[in-house]
């Protein structure tokens, strides 16, 4: 590697068997490249939104474009403990949360309360997290904790691998961060 070239970004992960994989050399044992997490985030969000909310992903980027609307963002965090440990988070603007909740529940938007919309956001985060971890860590032993919401949490996920999704009626961001074992 050239001295000025940045090493590929990797993150602590969950596949002990992968420590033997030469393509993963250079990082900590079992490290998963950020690019692989990006791919898995994309696939998990697409499947969950399509199956649960009949919503498609029109565009997806590794970084969120600037959003001048400044809408309140609902943040849902799903911590997971074991091997691996870490946190998944989903950041959805309030308006989009309501729309996705209406589709999830099979109702019209005006029939959905803010509480129900938040509850659906929790469920979506839980399902996306489950899909991401089962893909990255199918053989691992860990437990997903109960999801937690944080109103207007913004999309700051310092250190996590994030991906932004345009779903037509709005956009959302999904982030994953593994915690290193102590």
């Amino acid at each position, binding site marked *: 590697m050239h001295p000025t070239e940045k090493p590929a970004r990797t993150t602590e992960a969950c596949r002990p068997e992968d420590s033997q994989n030469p393509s993963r050399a250079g990082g900590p044992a079992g490290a998963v490249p950020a690019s692989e997490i990006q791919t898995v985030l994309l696939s998990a969000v697409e499947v969950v939104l399509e199956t649960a909310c009949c919503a498609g992903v029109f565009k997806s980027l590794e970084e969120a474009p600037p959003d001048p609307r400044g809408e309140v963002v609902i943040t849902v965090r799903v911590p997971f403990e074991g091997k691996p440990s870490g946190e998944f988070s989903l950041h959805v603007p309030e308006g989009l949360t309501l729309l996705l909740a209406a589709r999830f529940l099979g109702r019209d938007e005006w029939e959905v309360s803010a509480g129900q919309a938040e509850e659906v956001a929790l*469920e979506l985060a839980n399902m996306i997290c489950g899909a991401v971890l089962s893909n990255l860590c*199918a053989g691992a032993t860990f437990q*997903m904790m109960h999801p937690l919401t944080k109103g207007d949490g913004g999309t700051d996920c310092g250190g996590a691998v994030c991906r932004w999704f345009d779903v037509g009626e709005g956009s959302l961001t999904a982030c994953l961060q593994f915690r290193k074992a102590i």
Partner: protein
Amino acid sequence: MDVMIVDDSPAMRTFIRRVLLLSSLKIGGCLEAANGEEALQLLERNWLDVVLTDIHMPLMDGEELLRRMLRHEVWKLIPVVVLSADQTRERTRRMLELGAKGYVSKPFTPEKLRREVEQSLGVRRASY
């Protein structure tokens, strides 16, 4: 067929009920419980053909519900299908080894749910 949905999230129960309606399964009654304890109370008063349960719930989780049902003379005949966001091999294996007749990862399509429920009923019939 009479079904019980066990999940601590009312939104998820609504989703599952909606998917059941779309699945073309012939659903008669559909009971809902928010945890294993509520589910056992409903089982005391109702006969069901299949129980669809989440795993992580307060008061009594899906694993304990399954254990209690399997210890009961009559309830052990009711197939339990686990519906969970946890898709890891370890969790799936554990629930199936405990005695669940099916395991479906959330979210699921009506077709997937129908297949799993029909299969669980077939397993039950074969074990008579």
